């Protein structure tokens, strides 16, 4: 299983790289016309924060690299492979639902997101699928009939 140590080290390295990228992007901020000379430049605060965040990430990286833990010794990111599978599949189902909405509309998303998530969680009981679809229909009705939302 993926340990907290490895996952955190990868995460902090990614944060440091992202901080560097965003700091370079910030160099290109240009103020509009007459306001350009007023006060501190626009890049000041984002770059200050990126520096701060990268510094914290570096400290966390150092702690994991040298000490091997930060109050989470021996812990893994997921308790078991089954939990990892369910969590990551649910994440995938949520993203797919959003793509379905973008391409096929709200009703298609409302009809597919529930069953997709149930599948991701490994649900085998058909009654659960039925309840989830019934609740999706009631969410649709509440928003369209009660609140007047147009999808």
């Amino acid at each position, binding site marked *: 299983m993926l340990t907290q140590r490895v996952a955190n080290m990868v995460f902090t390295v990614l944060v440091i790289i992202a901080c560097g990228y965003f700091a370079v992007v910030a160099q290109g901020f240009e103020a509009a016309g007459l306001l350009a000379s007023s006060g501190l430049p626009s890049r000041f*605060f984002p770059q200050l924060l990126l520096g701060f965040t990268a510094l914290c990430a570096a400290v966390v990286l150092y702690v994991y690299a040298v000490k091997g833990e930060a109050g989470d010794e021996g812990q893994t990111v997921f308790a078991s492979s089954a*939990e990892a599978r369910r*969590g990551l599949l649910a994440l995938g189902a949520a993203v797919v639902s959003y793509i379905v909405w973008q391409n096929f509309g709200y009703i298609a998303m409302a009809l597919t997101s529930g069953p997709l998530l149930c599948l991701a969680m490994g649900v085998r009981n058909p009654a659960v699928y039925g309840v*989830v679809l019934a609740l999706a229909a009631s969410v649709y009705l509440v*928003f369209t009939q009660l609140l007047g939302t147009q999808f």
Partner: protein
Amino acid sequence: MFDAAAVGVAFANLLDPFTMILLVTGILLGLVIGILPGLGPPIAIALALPFTFYMEAVPSLILLLAIYNAAIYGGSISAIAVGIPGTGAAIATVMDGHAMYKQGRGGEALGLSLTGSIIGGLVSVLCLTFIAPVLAQVAIKFGPREFLAISIFGLVVVVRVAGANLFKGLLVGGLGIFLTTWGLDELNGAERYTFGTYHLYEGIPLVPFLVGIFAVSEVLIGAEKALKRIEFDKTSLTVKIPGLKTLSRLKGNLARSSLLGTIIGIIPGEGAAVGAFFAYSEEKRRSKEPERFGTGIPEGIVAPETANNATVGGALVPTLTLGVPGSPAAAVLLGAFLIQGLAPGPTLFDERPDIMYSLFLGLFFINILLFFIGLFAIRFAAMLIKVPMTVIVPTVLLLSFTGIYAVSNSLFNVGVLLAAGVLGYVVRKLGYSIAPLSIGFVLGPILENSLRQSITIADGSTAEFFNTPIGLGIYAALALTILWGPISTWVRSRMAGKVEDP
């Protein structure tokens, strides 16, 4: 300062049948969401936010406050009945509450938690009613340097209590603030991280971000544990309200926990969970028989339950007077104010005292009604613990998607919700707390504007930058907060050394 006309308007607002219906609905919804393990007050408020878009300010805020209060209390029901806290605020209640339930005294435990919650809630509302207008009068004199000090204080405090590792907290706090720099620069119109899309001109929207961070990340974590069955014995669920003799014995505990909860709520960034733990530890420390804590004694239920509900009124003090959220739930509540076109802060007390008094009076009503609704509804509401995560997860995700779209009519905002949810999920899986991330995101604009204005005012002079007695007081309090732990440990070790020396 006291505005009788505004109080009259507030009464009229509250006695409006629609507002009363929303108040009762909010209590029931809050109870339901609080009972369901994993769904705490921030998620409860976040899920209800889209509905408030269609309402007037007072009814919508009353609905959310009712949900906030009832959700904190609701968490204790599952903590007592099944030993699984419905909310983080009820974690401390599990120890004695569930132990009492297993002894067949569940009704007594539920009665104690209900009574404690109501007393804590009422005391904190009383404090809010008297402190908030006074603080608003002081805060109206605050300039950028004072707001900078308050924001730094709030952020550092939330980072300290949020997790074991300070730098992990600071990292996500910094990330939260950084994300608020996206969009047009308010001071000089520069485009920052807009990536060529007009959707980002106004920056990352607050409400989708917060709903994503709290609700969507919780949904994904809930999906991992979806198939675990909750065993539940519904015997001994009839609430038994403690008698006067018991209350008289617990009066010191109730008073201390109410005040502790209120004070901890006032400190920006601290939440109900911290208040509950603090009160529990304090009562255990004061007790002549500390070893009995955890075995199912009334003191162990009353202390955390009184304190966690007392944090509600406390958390609203900085939220309403300074616009600095007192807890993650209050951060989401700020979003509700923004939806209504209201900017919480000292000027709001001058501009809309009717709304402020409506909220204060509304909180009194909420606590009193929560008592009666809790008394009759607990037995039925507790059955909700049986609702499986496999039903909750898809429904909450669909509600989040639909609600965010309904507020903004923008699929882009749904994308922000999802992205924030994924971010929240990743950082939570890696052992980071999402409290600094959310509070950082709310405080970001205040921090940036006040820092840039403070630097401009100081004109390069460090002395001028810190030439603010109130700001220095806040920085001193911050230093004390940070150093208190190490100092007290050092003093204790010295004292222990002296005792051992002879």
